[in-house]
């Protein structure tokens, strides 16, 4: 990768400086550019990918524009976007713009917010991203297969005033369950996967390729955007010999801080932006490991320093705090309280009728039944018409939402259309001003969060371990 960068001056600032020179000649040209609709097209189609290395056979995949991951869409905060999605698959699809606060009709949930896009048809999504940050897009139809076969891509909403870094890197992490001959393994929707930890795979790729070494230069500062686009694989990344600073979670800026225990926990659908000052010695090598699952730690990739002399003697002396996004602040004193309880799964204790360890029941989810429930109710699949909301909020109301995980499993719970302000986990307040659209609950965790119900519509709230969502860990709430 190229290492000649405009340090100290970010690329955008440079562009803006250029634009200022021009703007004296062409009055108002920048303004019209900013308000002009940013047009994109995506084709959901078939393709093939080299996932297991050059010597392994090609893997047939389903992919946006035939690429895994799909093309990275880079759009600007506050500028209208129009994305035409063409369905060249053999089955219906939709696209969910994960984490973007947008009109309900653009949210991409089949049956609930739009009719599915049939094969050969297209649908145009239009929205204006209010928040800058790292987001992603994926189908919300036949989700296990469509995401599991490769349909996913990153959506980066650029700030008007980004922080100063030498390089802005993106790792879209995907997890694949391949057979020995390199094909996508059958068995989507296995009841064992559904009732346990989901369809975790056996090959992890970074930006669609087996992770090779990442070449870096001593002294440089990078912003690394991590996107977990896996169906089910949780990750806990450690950057050996480095001290990553978390600057945003799920696209939303937070107080810059080091991760607890030096471990960046990234559940499916979560994004974490880190700033890394690469202070290793020229020529040195440092592993990036993932040790989320006990006994299954592995080296994801390695930072390999070039032999060039350090770019600078000391770390860059520039702030790493990202500009805040315009999130509405919940009024906790006057908030409506709602609680959701996650139930079911293997070792679920049989608290739920028909789910989890009931006597005579072979396995939760067996015989096509749901494996999970929220407040005793199992909504299964990807979304469909007639899903009755679990609760209704008056538009503009603040909601204090408690999520209680009664199960023995981990669940990244994703809220559509909103970002949640994290208040407390298991009774201890959550510091650093964190906002997330996908919050991870460990077994038996209780999480308190809040949001302002400022966006009308029927919105989904579901686990993003896709097998769990499909097997009942999903609900809907309404904002009037």
């Amino acid at each position, binding site marked *: 990768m190229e290492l000649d960068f405009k340090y100290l001056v970010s690329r955008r600032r440079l562009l803006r400086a250029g634009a200022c020179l021009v703007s004296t000649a062409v009055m108002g040209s920048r303004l019209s550019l900013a308000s002009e609709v940013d047009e994109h097209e995506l084709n959901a189609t078939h393709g093939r990918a080299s996932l297991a290395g050059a010597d392994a056979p090609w893997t047939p995949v389903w992919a946006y524009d035939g690429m895994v991951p799909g093309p990275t869409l880079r759009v600007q905060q506050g500028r209208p976007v129009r994305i035409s999605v063409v369905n060249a698959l053999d089955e219906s699809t939709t696209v969910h713009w994960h984490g973007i606060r947008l009109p309900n009709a653009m949210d991409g949930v089949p049956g609930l917010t739009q009719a599915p896009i049939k094969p050969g048809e297209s649908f145009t999504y239009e929205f204006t991203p209010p928040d800058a940050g790292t987001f992603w897009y994926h189908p919300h139809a036949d989700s296990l297969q469509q995401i599991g076969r490769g349909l996913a891509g990153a959506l980066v909403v650029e700030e008007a005033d980004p922080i100063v870094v030498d390089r802005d890197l993106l790792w879209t992490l995907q997890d694949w369950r391949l057979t020995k001959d390199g094909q996508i393994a059958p068995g989507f929707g*296995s009841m064992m996967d559904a009732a*346990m930890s989901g369809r975790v795979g056996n090959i992890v790729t970074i930006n669609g390729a087996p992770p090779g070494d990442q070449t870096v230069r001593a002294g440089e500062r990078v912003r690394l955007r991590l996107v977990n686009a896996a169906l089910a694989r949780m990750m806990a990344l450690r950057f050996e010999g480095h001290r990553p600073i978390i600057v945003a979670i799920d696209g939303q800026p937070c107080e810059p801080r080091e991760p607890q225990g030096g471990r960046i926990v990234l559940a499916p659908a979560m994004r974490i932006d880190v700033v890394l000052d690469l202070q290793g010695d020229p020529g040195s090598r440092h592993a990036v490991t993932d040790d989320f*699952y006990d*006994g299954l730690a592995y080296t994801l990739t390695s930072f390999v320093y070039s032999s060039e002399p350090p770019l600078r003697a000391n770390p860059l002396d520039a702030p790493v705090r990202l500009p805040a996004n315009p999130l509405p602040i919940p009024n906790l004193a006057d908030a409506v309280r709602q609680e959701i309880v996650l139930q079911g799964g293997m070792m679920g204790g049989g608290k739920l009728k028909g789910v989890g360890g009931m006597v005579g029941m*072979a396995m939760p989810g067996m015989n096509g039944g749901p494996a999970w429930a929220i407040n005793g109710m199992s909504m299964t699949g990807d979304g469909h018409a007639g899903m009755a909301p679990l609760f209704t909020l008056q538009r503009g109301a603040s909601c204090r939402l408690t999520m209680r995980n009664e199960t023995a499993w981990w669940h990244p719970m994703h809220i559509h259309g909103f970002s949640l302000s994290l208040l407390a986990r298991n009774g201890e307040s959550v510091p650093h001003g964190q906002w997330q659209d996908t919050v991870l609950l460990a077994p038996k965790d209780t999480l308190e969060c809040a949001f302002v119900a400022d966006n009308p519509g029927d919105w989904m709230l579901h686990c993003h371990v896709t097998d769990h969502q499909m097997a009942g860990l999903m609900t809907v709430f309404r904002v009037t």
Partner: protein
Amino acid sequence: MKMTYRLAALAVAIAMPLPAVAATINAVMYKNPQCSCCESYATYLEHNGFKVDIKPVNNLSQISSDAGVPADLEGCHTLMVDGYVVDGLVPVDIVKKLLTERPAITGITLAGMPAGAPGMGGAKDGPFTIYAFTKDGKAPTVYATE
């Protein structure tokens, strides 16, 4: 890449399970890293003359399917012992019966996690049905009830 090797190693392990040696019977257990009841079952086997090598895996349903376990009869873990597949919480006397009789089957399974099964605790509500399966596409047959 390492994961590819691991997958290859698993394939080898499935094809050539460790032979039983002397008094102790060696077994390899593939289990979900986050499921705890399987470990109680391994302890139960160890109290009954087995030596169990526990291997956490993330793709248990794939391993179990590759081992020939019918999808609707999956147990909560997969054990490879003396040339046979023993899936789920099968009582030890039935495992020993299998290893003594050595029938021409791929393995046996007790589906799900029924209460009262070894490793599960709780009271048994009815007889367990342990099925025998093969890899030749024939329907599973009842191997034992207990």
